[in-house]
């Protein structure tokens, strides 16, 4: 210990600066008495009641229950786990649009009023009010379920609310490169470039893991998990999470109707996370061999000895086949066309879904042990009863292969095609009588697919585009996706909305054009689809060929008389139970032919049907995640 009390002179280490603050004069002993002057000054008196808090004040929580969607992100970000979500049964619940019947409750024994919950709230419903007084001996009053009136219902103004600077969410979607209209006008190369690794990482980082997409997806994909895996840079784990519910990542990554993005809570105030394109990024980033290994990891080792035949190799048929094969059943898929894929191949143009990507998905399914026999039409090459006899169960999933015709006068001319047939011919590369000007009837995605395909073929053969599309619906209620309408317009497709087909004008054997009438309204009072025409307003759209894309029907003639009689029917379609079962115990049905409308619903139906068959075949509880 140093010696005590001696004053050692500091060794001259550094020069002492000029700023010397030793007190100048010690001042007299009585100096402090000057403070007495305060006695004669006006005392500062403050009011007793609580002072109003500052405008930015972070007081007790308020939550606007109209805006709140119960996503739980506030509970997720809370660093003291002060917020827990409370399930309230009688609140609105709508999984399709990402609304959950729960609201945040706050434990003021833990909360530190940091307002991170306010800054991250996707809808901006939660805020901190300017109320700060709460005195109670009753512990329970410190656990509150705030509404917009606040803790004591006094409706204090908002202090710390949602604000531009402090918003923690990334509301802008990462830009996605696309081929310019000019460059894509005469070829079928894929339009959407797809994310590169860096952009995918940033896009994936936008996800706040609220899980709304999981519940909105028809087959309940584990989107939060695979997005988080992409963000962690582990694309293989992402593929693993995807294959838990969807054997068609390449397809769904490109053409899915992305119900998840409709429900995404970021979409409330900004652009939803690009969940579909992230799925595509993950599957593109993993080698096909690795994908097979991941997808077949849970394949049953032993064979069940049961045989299942599946008619139709669309998404429903192949998903059912994939699940059953992984459960150890022997599965054979019969496809009437030359190549498998159904509508995915013959209904979707290649600029949307390249065929090699579809083949990649199908290759994985075949690797699971599914035998696909193409060019085999049931009812023509193989009898349905023959199919029945050497299989324990049969699944029909032949989709809606037949294009409906409007059957308006002139619609039976040779120059009038159905969109579905024409698209199939384009895919198969078969030639057909392409004219310099064409008219398409219909306003859905199929109509735009054929219109834009014709535009490309016209540009390639005639060097110019002349395609007119006539849709019943008004511009703001088109059935087709918005980007289809926009991109179609960019590629030269002239779109007429609110027009109903009247007749196809034919003069000496050649089609002159399509006459349409104004469609005043589409839905009647009860909201049912019942268009009302104004026959005075007629337009003639000049065209040398007409394509009808107004609807599709199923062809079930291959079932044969007695099976058709044994089945139950509803409006021309087989009546099925939730799990795809029909009135005939060994026969199941799935996909567009029983209930549409798109690939992802077909995949979901495929899972349900597969687990039903597995139970029917005595497989007991299937390991598969049955999509409820």
């Amino acid at each position, binding site marked *: 210990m140093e010696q005590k009390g001696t004053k050692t002179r500091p060794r001259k280490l550094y020069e002492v600066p000029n700023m010397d603050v030793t007190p100048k004069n010690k001042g007299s002993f009585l100096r402090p008495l000057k403070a007495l002057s305060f006695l004669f000054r006006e005392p500062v008196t403050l009011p007793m009641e609580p002072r109003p808090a500052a405008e930015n004040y972070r007081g007790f929580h308020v939550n606007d229950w109209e805006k709140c969607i119960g996503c739980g992100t506030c509970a997720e970000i809370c660093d003291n786990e002060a917020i827990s979500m409370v399930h309230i049964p009688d609140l609105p619940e709508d999984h399709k649009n990402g609304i959950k019947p729960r609201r945040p409750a706050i434990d003021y024994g833990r909360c530190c009023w940091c307002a991170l919950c306010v800054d991250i709230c996707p809808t901006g419903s939660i805020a901190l009010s300017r109320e700060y007084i709460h005195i109670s001996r009753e512990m329970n009053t410190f656990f509150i379920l705030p509404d917009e009136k606040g803790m004591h219902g006094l409706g204090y103004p908002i202090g710390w609310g949602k604000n531009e600077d402090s918003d923690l969410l990334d509301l802008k979607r990462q830009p996605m490169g696309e081929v310019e209209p000019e460059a894509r006008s005469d070829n079928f190369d894929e339009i959407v470039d797809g994310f590169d690794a860096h952009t995918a990482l940033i896009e994936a980082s936008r996800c706040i893991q609220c899980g709304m997409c999981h519940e909105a997806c028809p087959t309940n994909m584990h989107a939060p998990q695979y997005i988080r895996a992409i963000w962690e840079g582990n694309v293989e784990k992402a593929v693993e999470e995807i294959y838990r519910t969807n054997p068609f990542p390449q397809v769904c990554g490109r053409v899915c109707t992305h119900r998840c993005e409709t429900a995404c809570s970021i979409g409330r105030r900004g652009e939803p996370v690009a969940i579909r394109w992230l799925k595509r990024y993950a599957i593109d980033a993993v080698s096909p061999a690795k994908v097979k290994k991941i997808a077949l990891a849970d394949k049953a080792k032993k064979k069940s000895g049961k045989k299942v035949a599946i008619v139709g190799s669309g998404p429903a048929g192949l998903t059912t086949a994939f699940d059953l094969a992984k459960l150890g059943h022997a599965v054979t898929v019969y496809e009437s066309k030359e190549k498998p894929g159904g509508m995915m191949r013959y209904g979707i143009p290649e600029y949307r879904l390249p065929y090699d990507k579809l083949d990649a998905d199908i290759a994985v399914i075949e690797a699971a042990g599914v035998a696909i026999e193409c060019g085999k039409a049931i009812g023509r090459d193989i009898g349905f009863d023959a199919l029945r006899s050497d299989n324990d169960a049969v699944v029909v999933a032949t989709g*809606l292969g037949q294009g*409906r015709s409007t*059957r308006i006068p002139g619609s039976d001319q040779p120059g009038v095609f159905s969109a579905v047939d024409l698209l199939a011919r384009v895919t198969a590369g078969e030639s057909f009588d392409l004219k310099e000007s064409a008219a398409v009837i219909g306003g859905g995605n199929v109509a735009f697919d054929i219109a834009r395909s014709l535009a490309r073929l016209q540009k390639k053969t005639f060097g110019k585009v002349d395609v007119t599309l006539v849709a019943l619906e008004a511009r703001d209620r088109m059935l087709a996706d918005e980007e289809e309408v926009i991109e179609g317009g960019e590629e030269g497709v002239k779109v007429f909305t609110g027009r109903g087909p009247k007749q196809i004008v034919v003069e000496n054997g050649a089609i002159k054009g399509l006459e349409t*009438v104004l469609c005043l309204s589409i839905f*009647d009072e009860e909201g049912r689809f019942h268009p009302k*025409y104004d026959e005075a307003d007629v337009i003639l759209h000049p065209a040398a060929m007409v394509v009808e894309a107004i609807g599709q029907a199923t062809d079930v003639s291959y079932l044969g008389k007695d099976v058709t009689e044994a089945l139950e029917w509803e409006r021309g*379609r087989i009546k099925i139970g939730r799990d795809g079962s029909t009135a005939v115990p060994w026969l199941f049905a799935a996909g567009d032919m029983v209930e549409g409308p798109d690939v992802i619903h077909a995949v979901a139906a495929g899972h349900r049907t597969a687990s039903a068959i597995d139970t029917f075949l005595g497989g007991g509880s299937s390991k598969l995640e049955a999509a409820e």
Partner: protein
Amino acid sequence: MTDTEKTEGHSGAHAALASAKTLEEVLNTAIGFEDTARTFYAALAPKVSKPMRALVEELAEEEQRHYDLFTGVRDHPDTVAHLKDLIATPPEDHKFADFVQMPKLDDNPDDQAILQYAMGREDAAYKQYSALAETTPDGPLRDLFRFLADEELRHKGELEKTYYEIIHSGGV
């Protein structure tokens, strides 16, 4: 396609109706038409394939309801007053059926053909009754024709809705 072809179901109907004088006679003729339609559909049902059968049976029931409705009106104690309130809210004519071709029904029609045929019949009946309403002077007889025309129009509207929901389905 002239009107008469459209109504070959109502053989020589126009003349019979025009000459009928009392409500009684007109209603009996109308009931007769409904009866022929009902038996026509009832006969067609077993012949068509099962997926279509439910649809045809539905049409038969629809005609049956018309049949009962008209008989109800006929046997109503005070037909004239009853007719007045029935005409109060005339339905709208969506004119859709004007542009639907009337097919010949063979033994294996598809749903679209059946519905088009049914709409054609209703449309013809509606036009016929409204034409008669125009030409008859004011009075109970005119109200009756108005009522019959409204009923046919309402039935046609229903068929148009069903037509749309079945045909324009499928695909995305």
